């Protein structure tokens, strides 16, 4: 594990964080992806790539990785991740989670249940809204459906959905809005209604929202995706206009990457997000855990 954390931020624990800071936690789990492994190495690869782009103008601490490979089942991974996220939020800081497969996002979003109602902006080639048949399975294909059912989650926006799917996935949930390109290779835009309002948002970035020519290191690439500049621009506009309650980047798979293109893209989009974000202290939502 590298000596410094994401963007050269110091390693530390939650007590190192102050209000408005960024608290990083890695979740090296690909438990939710039965097709291909490798996102377990995502957090470290993103940290490594971020070393070339230090952020000295943003305060942050890297709390390291959640233990995953001690035989833990997904429920324990969710619980361990949730505990770290609560500790970060308890300091008034913003949790920034490095995956891992996208199933990990559920842990972060569900742990922020004391932040009041917030919306979700989900950058992804897929809607991650596959049927969820019960409590026994948890995976990256149905994670947004589970998140949508959380009582503290308001509206959901999926940006970048595309390609060949089984059916029209945009019609699955009343609060789900899907924006897609006008045609392959043409970038969609964030609806203006999502760039205003007091309610905070959680931003989740599945790196497969990018075109495979930009981010080849991911398990389920879909052609016709966004370029990195467009994604960074969209993330900036959300971060400048809405209060960010938490964020993550998921599905970076270094085993499938080419010359670290994907982990570097992940670091760049996170850099865009934390620099554009208006620093703020989250409400004291869980002081007991701090």
């Amino acid at each position, binding site marked *: 594990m590298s000596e410094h954390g994401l963007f050269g931020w110091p390693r530390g624990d939650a007590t190192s964080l102050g209000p408005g800071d960024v608290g990083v936690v890695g979740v090296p789990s690909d438990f939710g992806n039965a097709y291909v492994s490798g996102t377990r190495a995502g957090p470290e690869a993103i940290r490594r790539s971020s070393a070339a782009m230090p952020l000295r103008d943003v305060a942050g601490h890297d709390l390291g990785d959640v233990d995953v490979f001690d035989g833990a089942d997904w429920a324990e991974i969710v619980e361990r991740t949730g505990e770290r996220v609560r500790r970060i939020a308890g300091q008034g800081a913003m949790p920034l989670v490095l995956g891992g497969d996208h199933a990990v996002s559920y842990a972060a979003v569900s742990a922020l249940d004391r932040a009041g109602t917030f919306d979700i902006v989900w950058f992804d080639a897929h809607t991650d809204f596959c049927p969820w048949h019960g409590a026994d399975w948890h995976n990256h294909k149905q994670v947004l459906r589970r998140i949508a059912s959380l009582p503290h989650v308001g509206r959901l926006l999926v940006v970048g959905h595309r390609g060949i799917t089984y059916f029209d996935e945009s019609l699955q949930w009343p609060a789900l809005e899907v924006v897609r390109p006008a*045609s*392959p290779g043409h970038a969609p835009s964030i609806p203006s209604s999502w760039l205003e309002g007091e309610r905070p948002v959680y931003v989740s970035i599945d790196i497969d929202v990018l075109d495979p020519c930009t981010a080849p290191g991911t398990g389920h690439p879909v052609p016709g995706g966004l370029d990195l500049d467009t994604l960074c621009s969209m993330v900036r506009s959300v971060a400048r206009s809405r209060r960010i309650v938490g964020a993550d980047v998921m599905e970076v798979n270094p085993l499938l990457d*080419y010359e670290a293109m994907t982990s570097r893209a992940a670091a760049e989009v996170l850099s865009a997000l934390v620099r554009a974000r208006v620093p703020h202290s989250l409400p004291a939502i869980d002081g007991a855990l701090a």
Partner: protein
Amino acid sequence: MMDTDASFSPDVPLVLSPWMSVEQLDDSAATIFLSSDGTRLRIPRSLHRLLLRFATATSPHEVCGTSDPTAPAMRAMAQLAAKGFLATPGSAAVPPARVVWDPPVRMFDAPAQKLRAAQADIVFLGMPWDFGSYTAAGARRGPSALREASLQILYGLDRLTGRPLGWFDADRRCPVLTGVSLADAGDIVVNHGERHAAVFARASEVLATVTRDGALPVSIGGDASTAYPVIELAQRAGPLDVMRIGRAPREPRAFDAPRLTAESLPGHALSLPNVERYVDVIPAVMQGDGIDGAQRYVRVAVDGAVAAMPTSQVLPQERRRVHVGIDIDSLAKASDSPSLPSHTYAEIHALLLAIGRSYRIVSVDLCGADPGVACWGGVAMTALHLLLTALGAAKDPV
């Protein structure tokens, strides 16, 4: 050659095929296997006992104790003979060559297609052959690797009606291939050191067999030369244009090469009696030859030429028959050097839809799939998206 039916008559002796073996046996049932074509059957143990009585040439009448062709045992023997487990004495001494391998997974998880006329609308055949181009080393593993990648977008059937569900193109917001059935005939057998002509003749024969009832053939290569058998088959039914999307160099001399290679494919295709025109669609940054309706071979840069493909004078109701090929190696990928001309997904997606509107797509090939290249995952999914787009353009053009 592809029909395995032994002539069946209650009084004509039959013998067990030497290619039959028993894979599993218990008190109630047996699983029997025919290595000559990969057929597996699970049969009752009582039927297996009767079958073993054909170890020496014996008439079904003797084994079943009746000449009544409607008797259950007699009907079962007729079926086993039809599938090749029973053969005419002497004929089975000549080993029936295995012509295809059953893949461990099938394209999009569609049903397997045996060596008979497919009832499906579209049938896939793998061509694990990469001797046709020095630069295609590794492409022999393309068919298997594409099948494995295709399991991310599975073929589905309505559980009550059996009607194919098709897919949904989220970019165009429309269904694709709804009601269109698929089947996978496996991979052509390529024996070590076998002659080129023998492999391609086998492919032609298999393609002719499985498409006899009208299925649209899709060849999965392999290097670009593997497109030849499916083009040859398609032109048998009438005048045909060929449009192949790739990175064809300007090497017209290669066309005259006496042997079929990836480079000489246009010349060999144009020497077929019904191939009227061959269009190589090359990346936008490459210099095309312009569109000349009089030329039988033309290289067209993809930019701006999509709507002006050389059929503009053809009325829609007279849509020409076309074979469409896609060389996966020419698709843009993350590991490309900036100077390498490549096709973008968006360009080819639009081009395929345009071809479907102007032409009648009667056959397809997808070649140049090398799972050993960097960024294979993205390449494979791009190729599979374009394959489904091409098939949609063939079956439900809009």
